[in-house]
């Protein structure tokens, strides 16, 4: 175990130098290799938000949109039905010929009512028979999944646009599971504005106001407390907006939002305003009236303006929301963690202090315990730390406060490998006359134990990595990598150093 070929030695030190080189990158600005250990939000300060979509409303809307096509399908094929009812997420009806209905309902050809989802090998809708001829139509498992997934994808896109528009530095926006969006905003001290921007779906539509409570209208309260009957028919919606900017109206210095419509939107808006001059148009945002101005003249330019007693900040935010588009479903903040920058700095300080002190204590202890071999173990320990940081850099891992704790713990536990080996050598020296043989045997016999002992900790770290969240994951990473570097440094670097020491003066060796 003490014989190293020149090639082996070369490989060992090249690996060490290569990985070690990356650790230097953290302390130096350079443009060639842009790799660094990232600081977690708990160290650099910032906000972590976990958002959840709720697609219930969307499902209800979608099932309602199926009512007319289904009725049409039944009528076109001469199927009689009665008691057609909409219940939240499903439709109930009594039908004469269920078998014929089933054939039509599950037809793969040109099925507009119930399209076949190729990627899931399933229809969008499903039905079940309650009794006799009463059936209940609802979305199939995969139909729901499709709605959910597209809502999630769209939400992520809108969230990204809104956050980019606010202009925070290097935000991270990721999908988490089937219903959640993870948002990390480094350096952000107060997430309230972002939270309020993400908390609104910002569904904007323009609807005409009717004189009285006629069919197809609903009663809404206007911005100045007026009761208005607003038609449910949407003249134009926010989808047709291509730009929105805050602006100040010249006459009375009132902040407003001016918007530009796309071609289709301009056409629709032009027609509606031409036909309804003199009437009032309600601008409705998320079910609430923002304002309800009079249509004084046709607006055909495709440009318009929304006023509504805004402050300039409100006008800015509304413009941002309209520019970014509407969220398909409301988003709920289900987890939020914000760390101020000064706490982050304090954490780095205390983390680094305890790392240095812990490191010095371990090094002193090892030196007093093993002297010359303590120095070897300590050299291995330093190399270990350098490699640990190097690998973290190569992986561009995120260092968290628990991650620093993992490094300190690695310092404490890494010497174990060398202690196991040295203690084994001590035992071998009692029975073995040849010092070189004793060292050789010591290394060989301790090998299995060292492996066994470290693999157990590695298993714990891997499970923690798989199940841990956020900062704790950082701990699992440093602990896990620490074990790998420990094995390398103990079994290659320290062993080589030991062999140099032993082979060169094997008479006076004491351990």
């Amino acid at each position, binding site marked *: 175990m003490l014989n190293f070929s020149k090639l082996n030695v070369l490989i060992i030190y090249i690996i060490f130098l290569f990985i070690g080189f990356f650790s230097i990158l953290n302390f130096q600005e350079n443009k060639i290799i842009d790799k660094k250990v990232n600081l977690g939000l708990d160290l650099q300060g910032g906000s972590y938000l976990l958002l959840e979509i709720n697609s219930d409303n969307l499902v209800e809307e979608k099932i309602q949109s199926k009512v007319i096509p289904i009725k049409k399908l039944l009528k076109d094929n001469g199927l009689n039905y009665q008691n057609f009812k909409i219940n939240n997420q499903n439709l109930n009806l009594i039908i004469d010929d269920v078998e014929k209905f089933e054939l039509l309902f599950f037809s793969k050809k040109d099925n507009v009512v119930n399209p076949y989802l190729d990627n899931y090998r399933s229809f969008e809708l499903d039905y079940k028979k309650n009794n006799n001829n009463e059936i209940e139509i609802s979305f199939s498992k995969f139909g729901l999944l499709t709605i959910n997934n597209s809502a999630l994808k769209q939400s992520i896109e809108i969230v990204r646009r809104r956050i980019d528009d606010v202009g925070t530095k290097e935000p991270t926006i990721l999908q988490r599971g089937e219903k959640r969006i993870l948002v990390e905003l480094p350096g952000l001290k107060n997430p309230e504005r972002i939270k309020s921007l993400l908390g609104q779906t910002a569904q904007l539509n323009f609807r005409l106001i009717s004189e009285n409570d006629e069919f197809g209208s609903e009663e809404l309260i206007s911005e100045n407390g007026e009761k208005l009957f607003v038609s449910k028919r949407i003249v134009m919606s926010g989808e047709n907006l291509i730009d929105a900017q805050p602006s100040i109206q010249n006459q009375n210095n009132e902040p407003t939002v001016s918007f530009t419509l796309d071609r289709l939107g301009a056409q629709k808006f032009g027609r509606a305003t031409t036909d309804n001059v003199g009437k009032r148009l309600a601008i409705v945002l998320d079910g609430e009236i923002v304002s309800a101005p009079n249509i004084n003249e046709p607006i055909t330019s495709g440009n318009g303006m929304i006023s509504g007693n805004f402050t300039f900040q409100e006008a800015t935010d509304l413009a941002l929301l309209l520019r970014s588009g509407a969220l398909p479903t409301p988003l709920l903040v289900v987890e939020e963690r914000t760390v101020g920058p000064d706490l982050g700095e304090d954490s780095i300080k205390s983390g680094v202090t305890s790392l240095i*002190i812990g490191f010095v204590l371990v090094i002193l202890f090892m030196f007093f315990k093993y002297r010359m071999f303590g120095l070897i173990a300590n050299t291995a320990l330093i190399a270990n730390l350098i490699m640990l940081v190097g690998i973290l850099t190569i992986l561009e891992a995120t260092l968290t406060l628990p991650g620093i704790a993992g490094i300190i713990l690695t310092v404490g536990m890494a010497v174990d490998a060398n202690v196991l080996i040295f*203690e084994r050598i001590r035992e071998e020296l009692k029975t073995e006359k040849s010092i070189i043989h004793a060292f050789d045997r010591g290394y060989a016999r301790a090998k299995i*134990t060292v492996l066994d002992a470290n693999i157990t900790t590695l298993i714990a770290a891997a499970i923690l990595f798989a199940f*841990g969240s956020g900062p704790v994951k950082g701990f699992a990473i440093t602990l896990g990598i620490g074990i790998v570097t420990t094995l390398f440094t103990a079994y290659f670097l320290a062993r080589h150093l030991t062999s140099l020491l032993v082979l060169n003066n094997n008479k006076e060796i004491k351990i």
Partner: protein
Amino acid sequence: MTNYNFSSKFKLANILSIILFILSVVFITFKGLNYGIDFKGGTLIELRSINTDISSIRNSLNDMKLGDVNVKKFGKEGDFLIKVEEQGDNNNIIPKIKQKLSDNLNSEINFRRVENVGPKVSAELLQSGIIAIALSLAAMLFYIWIRFEWQFSVGAIVALFHDVIITLGVFSLLSLEINLSIIAAVLTIVGYSMNDTVVIYDRVRENLGKYHKLEIANIANLSINETLARTIITSVTTLLALFSIFILGGEILRGFSFAMILGVFIGTYSSIFVASPILKFFKVSYKTLEKEEENIIS
């Protein structure tokens, strides 16, 4: 090499372990664990405000009807930690509390840390924490089962249960908070304790092969003594690192490092006084090893 007679103390130690284990289970069941917001849901606010005290913070939050509010000092002078139980309306609670505090306290407030965990997420975090611990125990069991004979596997797993339950028992007794980092600590304890047990087991296996005539109690005793120096040195270096975190690492890591310190003591103890006696209980001998080899051959 030392020559302490560990095996003569096995019985005494086992009685002690059983008592501690039962006490821990009783505490965990009846007193319960003090879950932090990670697992219970709710809001946590760490703030720094020099001219404030606990009672004025508490008073200013009192009329908000927040239910269970916990205010305590946290580390340095002027640092406070506020914990508010789960409210239902998580999206708006933080700005409301911040506003209220800013209005009522007559000094500048620095909100250093704000966390809010909703009921769904906290339930999931608790679940994945429990799964992680269970899975790590299972993985250890499996690893030892592959590397050793089943008797060793049982011994190791009993020792691990012993460590985890007693650590949690102490946390229950002292009403210390259980949060995500404590789960990390428990998993690391599992790894560390296993590490310690494996070193002794490795030696037991080696000695079983060497000394066919020795009783398992003597073999265990010999193996513990042979590895004792290593056991102590590694515990010392690990504890040096851990105490350094505990004392200097700041308030956030205190619970984590305390759990780990506790775990190193309990884990070291259990490798010697729980994992080893179980080999004696199963009357493990060199034949146990041979049988296993025969099985593999046939």
